[in-house]
């Protein structure tokens, strides 16, 4: 965990309300895919937690959906502006658990953390399948980026306007060794039911601090309470009380 200043080098829309921001700064504390950064935004008190999409040297990529005042303010930020970030927050996904043929399911703004995860798994020689779930064609982003990494990439849309009609779980392959997922809670619950192997879920929650101090995001698990920000955001399937 580290507090440091980053400079915005790109901030551009990917869809109507999803944007990609690239930042330059000290990324050395980001150690695992699935971790997040916590961003100080002028005029707002609480920092805003956003998952890490990619890290390349001193370059950090995040993708965020404009849902409230914090992300609306982020959308207006310009190249060259500086941001105060806490980096390296959260546990992240466990790469060693993947087996040979992991499947990754990302839904909406749950897609971004799957990118760095895919990159890392492929660099370890895994045969990676990625399912990107969206509501409709206009919301789709990063399909080509995942394909370029060499992942078997499937897109689902709820309304059938693109790719496979249905939910991300409808595209689950018959044969996989492990799963990783991130997305809205109804999707995570569907993944929990539909999957046959062990796997990992990344959770989103309103946070106070983002580094384990305030107990603002605690949830009950099989092994007692866990702070989503510090002991999560990634929990193993066996830990979850559903």
């Amino acid at each position, binding site marked *: 965990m580290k507090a440091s200043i980053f400079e915005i080098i790109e901030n551009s829309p990917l869809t109507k309300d999803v944007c990609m921001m690239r930042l330059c700064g000290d990324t050395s504390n980001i150690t695992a895919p699935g971790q997040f950064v916590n961003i100080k935004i002028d005029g707002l*008190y*609480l920092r805003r937690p956003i998952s890490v999409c990619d890290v390349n040297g001193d370059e950090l990529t995040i993708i965020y959906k404009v849902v409230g005042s914090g992300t609306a303010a982020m959308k207006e930020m310009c190249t060259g502006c500086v941001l105060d970030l806490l980096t390296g927050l959260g546990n992240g996904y466990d790469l060693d658990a993947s087996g040979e043929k992991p499947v990754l399911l990302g839904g909406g703004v749950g897609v971004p953390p799957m990118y760095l995860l895919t990159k890392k798994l492929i660099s370890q020689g895994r045969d990676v399948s990625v399912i990107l779930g969206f509501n409709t064609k206009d919301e789709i982003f990063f399909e080509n980026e995942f394909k370029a990494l060499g992942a078997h990439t499937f897109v689902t849309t709820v309304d059938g306007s693109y790719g496979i009609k249905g939910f991300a779980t409808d595209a689950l392959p018959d044969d996989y060794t492990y799963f990783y997922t991130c997305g809205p809670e109804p999707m995570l619950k569907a993944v929990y039911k539909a999957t046959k192997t062990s796997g990992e879920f990344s959770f989103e929650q309103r946070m106070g601090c983002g*580094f384990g101090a305030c107990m*603002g995001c605690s949830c009950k698990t099989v092994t007692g*309470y866990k702070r989503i920000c510090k002991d999560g955001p990634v929990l193993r399937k066996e830990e979850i009380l559903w």
Partner: protein
Amino acid sequence: MNLKVKLCGKEIDNPVIPASGTFGYGYEFMQWYDINVLGTFSCKGTTKDERFGNPLPRIAEAPGGMLNAVGLQNPGVEKVISKELPHLKEVYNKKIMANVSGFSIDDYAYTCEKLDKEDIVGWLEVNISCPNVHGGGMSFGTDPSMAAEVTKAVKAVTKKPVIMKLSPNVTDIKAIASACEKAGADGISLINTLMGMRINLKTKRPLLANTTGGYSGPGIFPVALRMVYDVYSAVEIPVVGMGGVSTADDVLEMMMAGATAVEVGAANLIDPCACKNIIDELPAAMEKYGITDLSDIIGIAHKQG
């Protein structure tokens, strides 16, 4: 330049104290800075039994601060003593302020008696002001006679200084403070959070699962300052001021209002190094305002002429 102050008979290196609920049991902040630079710190509110706390969401943004409705999540006093304090002792060599909450007078006495036996505990801070629990907490801090009962019960089981932590959600905070003093309290700390709420415009329902929460952050600083000023004038025992303190200047202002020491709460959640930065900035702030000894300015704003 002297930053040392004496809090209920015990000298501390500086008056800066992370407030309960924003600093856990301390040791996790070692990854941000050496917590031995602190005057002391107030640990996470501890109760007789383990508490999970309130359902999520527990946190909301607010103008000039935030709301929380954590609801005293803690592992219970036995586990605090067997697990948290030993862990803390590995990295921290000063005394802590043990923050205690309860749901009955017996609860308070039970927990305080257990913590009284711990060497690392320098002060007991008795929270009779938590707005986020039902059937306890703040209900003890809104009535002078109830506040006095808790104070007496705790004083009977400990030799350590007892600091009663008061709620701002009352009509006359001076009456509560005086009642605690008369019942034997060694100090008063204030303010706990102010009761507030937010409504989610999309769902048209309260944003916090607990409906209401405690408002903290810079927005409450002038309210807290006024109450510290009032309580200082009403009691002879030391006052620990808190509420929206975020800078070294805020610390000086609180002390001028009457605080012997100053707790820093919400700021720790936004900037994990907030307390260290305030301590580092204090000498320069003192120099700017011609202060050489912090003890000289305690309550100085009350002086005539």
